[in-house]
């Protein structure tokens, strides 16, 4: 996480996920966030020193928010890869009854989305063609996409190659990943709802605080705005709002799939 503090490190962290991110994109985001924050600070009659401190906080926390957004897209893509692989391999193995043929057919399904899974499958096929055992070949996939359902599917397939028989093909039905799939999707929907609520609550808080400041006559409030106590309090209020928003955004965009699942 500390790698994200520098813009170049943020860029390389995002590129590691397989996406492109330029300094210009970062500056654009920073510009938008800073403008919005300056407008809110101005409306709350914050002195420029405090407004600058708030912008500095945004500069510090923005990389985490940006990384979290990319991480969400990456995890979504990965989850789709898991599901597509499990579905395709089960069907293809039942049809062809050979690991290599199943892998070849499954690789076709990944051709279009050019994901890492496609590369892993091609490596596994290559290993099988070179005469490596199935455990070693399939470990290319297991290393990058470790999951109990994939491990179980691979064990069945290897057993099928070794001893054959309809029993093994029937046992493939036990890899019922559909429950897991729907659970993960439901959980992500819940997380998205929490994320939306967080945005609404933050905006609502800013709106109500603004309303409170302008509700009373300006002559009365003018004295209050000049108080250091008021300035400090408003600054801390915004500071905490920004931190809470970042925590929720980053906390909700974590890993979709637990290695143990």
């Amino acid at each position, binding site marked *: 996480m500390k790698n994200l503090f520098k813009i170049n490190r943020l860029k390389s962290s995002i590129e590691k996920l397989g996406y492109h991110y330029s300094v210009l994109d970062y500056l654009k985001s920073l510009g938008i966030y800073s403008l919005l924050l300056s407008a809110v600070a101005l409306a709350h009659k914050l002195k420029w020193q405090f407004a600058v401190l708030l912008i500095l906080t945004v500069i510090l926390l923005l990389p985490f928010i940006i990384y979290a957004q990319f991480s969400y897209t990456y995890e979504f893509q990965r989850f789709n890869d898991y599901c597509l692989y499990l579905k395709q391999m089960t069907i293809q193995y039942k049809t062809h009854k050979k690991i290599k043929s199943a892998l070849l057919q499954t690789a076709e399904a990944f051709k279009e989305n050019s994901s890492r899974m496609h590369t892993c499958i091609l490596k596994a096929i290559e290993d099988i063609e070179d005469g490596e055992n199935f455990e070693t070949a399939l470990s290319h996939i297991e290393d990058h996409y470790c999951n*109990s359902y994939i*491990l*179980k599917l691979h*064990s*069945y397939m*290897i*057993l099928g190659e*070794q*001893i054959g028989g309809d*029993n*093994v093909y*029937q*046992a493939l*039905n*036990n890899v*019922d990943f559909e*429950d*897991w799939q729907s*659970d993960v999707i439901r*959980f992500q929907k*819940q*997380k998205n709802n*929490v994320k939306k*609520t*967080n945005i609404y*609550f*933050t905006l*609502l*808080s800013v709106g*109500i*605080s603004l309303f*409170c*400041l302008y509700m*009373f006559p300006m002559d*009365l*409030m003018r*004295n*209050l705005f000049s*108080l250091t*106590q*008021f300035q400090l*309090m*408003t600054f801390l*209020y915004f500071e*905490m*709002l920004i931190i*809470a*928003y970042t*925590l*929720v955004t980053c*906390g*909700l965009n974590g890993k979709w799939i637990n290695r*143990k*699942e």
Partner: protein
Amino acid sequence: MKWLSRLNERNLNDYLIISNTSMQKFFKHRLIIGGLCIGLWISGYMLICRPIVFNKPIFIYGMIGAFWVGYKIPYFYIKVKVKQKTEQVSADFPLWLSSLEVLILSNNIPNTLKKSLMTCPNSIKKDLQILVNKIEKDPMNQQSYIEFLSQYKLSDVNELMLDLYQFNYLDKSLMISEFAVLHKRLNAINTSNRQHSQEQNLFFIGAINSVPLFLLSIYILLIANMLSNTLMGG
């Protein structure tokens, strides 16, 4: 007398077995932490209360309370640790058991268990080693299966181990269909574990979600306070 029941630590022996701690060591910790708490209470009392009078009821009750808190801390600590370990075992056991299917098809049950030692999760490795040793001596002893992970008091584990024991008498051709039934139960346990951890995650994040409104109420309260001060001051 209800409060007295709180002193009764019914599961302490089980907790000590699971956490691999001796009663002597645990008791030593209790005395040290209890002593520390009394020390803290006395120093706090001497700092705050002037003049210092030691025969006041508040001082004596405070000392008893401090010792009770210190006495209880190791118990709560060990309880939390055991709870975490139990949750870990509860999550790892279904995964381990479902991985046995492939081995069962080509081995007998004692060999399957022995071979699974290499790949079994760390949380159950020690207990599995004990089970394997017992089975090597007496392969058909049902009690060995019943005792496996019994200290965690997980009813699902107990039942599933008995099912596994029955596999000793099953024909290989029936194994797949029997395992399919077992899989259904394992999936139900997995789903329940998964949903439990998801709910926990959402609870913590949801708690942070209420921060904006909480901050707003504090902010409004302070503004009102400042405004009234300004008005009072003319």
